[in-house]
């Protein structure tokens, strides 16, 4: 555990200083709020069960944030650090791999929370979006979603040779998921055939869980989502730990 606090703090600062990562995590979802808000507004609609389009989009944007962090930032950073010999330097210190990953996960969580606060703050000020859930339940969903998506990210990092390859693999995995899972746009406007595909995408479960808990569903209605995400975390975590390479 030695070094966990320092490493988390350093990892967080480095995340903020990386302009591309910071943009996609913080600014991009906010831009979507402004853009789609300006186009569709937030008038109650039949399609969204009497809620506005921004109301249902906002919790789904958490999928964008955890996806960007877990599926893009995690693998690209880790593969890059490995390529540049940064992880190698840590290997000749008493730092343990799991301390490293724990610090990284703390940063991922922190970034998700900051991203959600920012995007909901903007949406609340401009469109008075609704929140009908419980904070602790939403926080739980955030933690679980971040862990699951990052576990996938560590797996990509273990497989990919170099930052370039990690970037390509991440994009191929994340970009289709971003649209097909309902994270980037409400799942209701997608045709049935695509909604069937979405059942096979991990990010879909993040979006469903967040939307459900955001509007006050009891957790018991979402055991499927919780189970899928916990399973991904567990399996991904074991595989990532098994195949984690310092160099």
């Amino acid at each position, binding site marked *: 555990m*030695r*070094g966990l*606090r*320092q*490493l988390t703090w*350093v990892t967080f*600062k*480095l995340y903020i*200083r*990386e302009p591309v990562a910071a943009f996609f995590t913080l600014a991009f979802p906010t831009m979507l709020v402004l853009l789609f808000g300006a186009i569709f507004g937030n008038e109650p609609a039949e399609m969204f069960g009497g809620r506005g389009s921004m109301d249902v989009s906002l919790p789904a944007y958490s999928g964008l944030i955890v996806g960007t962090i877990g599926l893009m930032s995690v693998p690209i950073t880790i593969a890059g*650090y490995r390529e*540049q*010999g*940064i992880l*190698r*330097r840590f*290997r*000749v*210190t*008493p*730092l343990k791999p799991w301390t490293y990953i724990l610090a990284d996960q703390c940063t991922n969580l922190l970034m998700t929370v900051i991203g959600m606060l920012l995007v909901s703050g903007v949406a609340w000020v401009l469109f008075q979006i609704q929140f009908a859930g419980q904070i602790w339940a939403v926080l739980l969903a955030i933690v679980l979603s971040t862990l699951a998506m990052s576990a996938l990210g560590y797996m990509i990092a273990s497989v990919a040779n170099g930052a370039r390859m990690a970037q390509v693999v991440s994009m191929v995995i994340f970009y289709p998921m971003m649209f097909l899972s309902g994270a980037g746009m409400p799942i209701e406007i997608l045709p049935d055939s695509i909604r069937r595909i979405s059942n096979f995408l991990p990010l879909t479960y993040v979006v469903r869980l967040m939307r459900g808990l955001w509007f006050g569903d009891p957790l018991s209605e979402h055991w499927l989502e919780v189970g899928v995400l916990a399973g991904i975390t567990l399996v991904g975590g074991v595989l990532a730990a098994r195949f984690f390479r310092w*160099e």
Partner: protein
Amino acid sequence: MEAIVQVEQMSKRYGEVQAVVDLSFDVYAGEIFGMVGPNGAGKTTSIECLEGLRHADGGRLSVLGFDPWREQPKMVERIGVQLQESNLPPRLRVSEALALFGALYPDPVPGDELLERMGLSEKRNSPIGKLSGGQKQRLYIALALINRPQLVFLDELTTGLDPQARRAMWDLVREVRQGGCTVFLTTHFMEEAERLCDRVAILDHGTLIALDSPEALIHSLDEEKRIIFHTRADPSHIQLDQLPGVTRFELNGERVMVQGKGERFISSVVAELEDQRLDFRDLRTEQPSLEDVFLHLTGRKLRE
């Protein structure tokens, strides 16, 4: 003397390539031990086996009493390492790097004290990516020393540095040793090994071909030294070739070259010049170097 690193018949191969063959040597407490040889001689492989980054295929290795592969977690608490191919995130600041590495050890040297010693105090808020090559290397030494190690490994410390920065680095390494830390370094600069190391292990094609102090290695060559000077006077009346040890004598305009060997060769020639009151200037001597030792042992020149 206490051997704090013991290596017996270490071997390491990568597929078909035998990188290190039957290497045996000891490193004693308090010395600057250097491993020299051309690129690809097996220096980095050897040092990385000792750091616990690679697993030697065969042989017995002991570093501060630890098996570097099996007991690496315990060993790293007490050694310092500067790696050849390694880096830190370019956006990380100097002071942050020191705080981070300090937090990994129980009793770290305060970061500011290390920055002072390394002459980096003014750079404490600079991102690592903005440091010059020499400044980066000094930071890496600072990080290697942060846990008050007994033994520090420096792999190709001065590669890529300009001559001035290289000399400054030599002073720094001497200071590290002065502070009671044993130094194990690798270099492909023979001059560096000669100036800096107490003992030098010369590697070629993964085998140890010589191990001794630079002076002893050079002495063992029994090669001739040269004295060269200029004079306007006519030196032909001085019977320089009759002096003890002198083997050759050449007169080329104003330039005179005397070649010979033996402990007293240089002093007897200079004394004779003084006795005869010859008006000479620009006197210099040329002595064999470690480079010549390598040439003699391998029959080829060490390429940079």
